[in-house]
């Protein structure tokens, strides 16, 4: 009997060893391409990066010169998205976590948020076209594109903000109320300040995604070539992701280096955002007193 148990254990341990090895290989196989891709992009894109590339206007049908207007455009779009989605998203999250009663209406709101989160980006683009560009007559503009991206970003901001607010200990609220503060005073003075790191993380991640989207801005605000930088929110604009799309699929004879250079800029942007989020997270964890 003892021998049987020992033999079985040995077999199981052998299986475990094989299994762990296979899983490790699989996991590395999943992650390795990411590293490889990053290296590849940096290697092929770095030669294109120069002061001129970043800061000057494109020349020669985009085949040389810089991508400055696309960078500026993405910047404007991100700001626009933030203006429309952050206040609204945070307020909605406050409602859901602090005010909403446990009833059908609240369930419907949550369902609506799940739906918004799942709608394909191109459908947002179509919606933005129908509502902002055509119906409200904003035309193909930074305004239309920002509004479209904002609605798309709303679910991320709402969910991460709500989670951050819920993480704040209930005891703070009870204490605050017992000292004669109102609900909103409690939220403003105690709850929100403590939830800021989590909220910030969500906002950065949401805006990062919005900045990288192409489909929603295809018909609502993006243009391939504009001779000048946009002057007002009602102007159309160039944007990095759209720019990359066009130069890699629709411009014959496009120098490979410029393409990789543009990808590198986008990659650096994503990396930067992720690093910012990591910094926010670790600082918050260090500072947290509860």
């Amino acid at each position, binding site marked *: 009997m003892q021998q049987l148990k020992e033999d079985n254990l040995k077999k*199981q*341990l052998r*299986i*475990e060893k094989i299994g*762990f090895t296979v899983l*490790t290989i*699989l*996991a590395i*196989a*999943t*992650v390795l391409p*990411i590293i490889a891709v990053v290296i*590849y992009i940096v290697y092929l894109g770095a030669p294109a990066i120069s002061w001129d590339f970043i800061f000057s206007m494109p020349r020669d049908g985009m085949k040389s010169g810089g991508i400055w207007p696309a960078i500026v455009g993405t910047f404007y779009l991100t700001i626009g998205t933030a203006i429309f989605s952050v206040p*609204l998203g945070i*307020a*909605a999250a406050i*409602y859901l976590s602090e005010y*909403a009663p446990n009833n059908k209406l609240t369930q*419907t*709101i*949550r*369902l*609506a*948020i*799940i*739906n918004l*989160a*799942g*709608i*394909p980006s*191109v*459908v947002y683009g*179509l919606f933005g076209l129908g509502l902002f560009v*055509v119906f409200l007559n904003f035309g193909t503009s930074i305004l239309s594109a920002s509004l479209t991206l904002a*609605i798309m*970003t*709303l*679910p*991320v901001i709402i969910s*991460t903000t709500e989670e951050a607010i819920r993480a704040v200990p209930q005891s703070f609220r009870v204490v605050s109320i017992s000292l004669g503060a*109102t*609900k*909103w005073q409690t939220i403003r003075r105690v709850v929100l300040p403590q939830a800021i790191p989590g909220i910030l993380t969500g906002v950065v991640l*949401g805006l*990062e*995604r919005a900045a*990288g989207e*192409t489909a929603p801005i*295809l*018909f609502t605000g993006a243009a391939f070539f504009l001779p000048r930088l946009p002057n007002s929110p009602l102007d159309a604009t160039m944007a990095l*992701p759209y720019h*990359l*799309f066009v130069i*890699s699929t629709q411009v014959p004879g496009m120098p*490979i280096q410029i*393409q990789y250079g543009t990808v590198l800029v*986008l990659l650096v942007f994503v*990396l930067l*955002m*992720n690093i910012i989020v990591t910094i926010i997270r670790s600082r918050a964890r260090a500072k947290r007193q509860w």
Partner: protein
Amino acid sequence: MKNTNMNKNTLKIGEQLVTRSIQFSGYSSILFVLMILFFLLYEGIPTIFEIPLKEIFSTRWYPIENYYGILPLILGSLVVTLGASLVAVPFGILTAVYIAEIAPKWVKEIMKPLVELLAGLPSVVLGFLGILIVSPFLRDKLHLPTGLTALTGSILLGGIAIPTIVSIAEDALNNVPNSYRLGALALGLTRWQTIWGVTVPAAKSGILMAVMLGVGRTIGETMTVMMVTGNAPLLPGSLNALFMPIRTMTATIASEMGEVASGSPHYHILFFIAVVLFLFTLLVNLIASNIGSKRIKRVEKMLS
């Protein structure tokens, strides 16, 4: 005392104003969903009157010659989604298991940011990599006439879905109480047996939800498929279709919207396709949220 009385009234009115605005912000999501649905239906329903239903669901999509059959597009989306799932689900779940249960801390610290990096990459970048790297590779290795195929799309979409699956599944695995694992180990099971006999089954619903959300993300992907699947609305008839170009619903809308005349049948049917897409993703998300109805808040966060 008088001072505080005046303050009291202003405070009260201010508080009411703020509470009201917060309330309406809460309701806004419903408003937006309804608006989107309304617009899609408003522009999409006319299709039913302009093009006979039988034709809409026929098998030829060639708008220039007035062929408006959307079946190849629906099937195109399904094929690519299926292919992507075949890639993403095994790799995603197994990687999640590795990260959550096996990897030493230092490996975790490297892998998690890498997965997050992949999650943050814009879909155009993946499409770009598809055109310049994956597609030529497949064309050479598999001796295909073109590298822009459903397979290419599946691989890249799998890559897009993997971070979603990994993070939610890993979350689910981490939420399994440690007492389960300790109990199994105390009974003499090896770690391997514990993982597959106890931990993973306990996290079943979370893992399932991760898969559904990954699939949902895949159906809705636009730019990547537009760039690498060849954009030929061929009807996927046999297994061979994986190696041929294909067109998804999303790519159709994105590529043809710029060229249609507002109000034309072509215009309307593109909105009609958007309605179909909306319903598809609605279905997947409803299933996903029902699986983990207690986890609804985390669903909202991860879906986005």
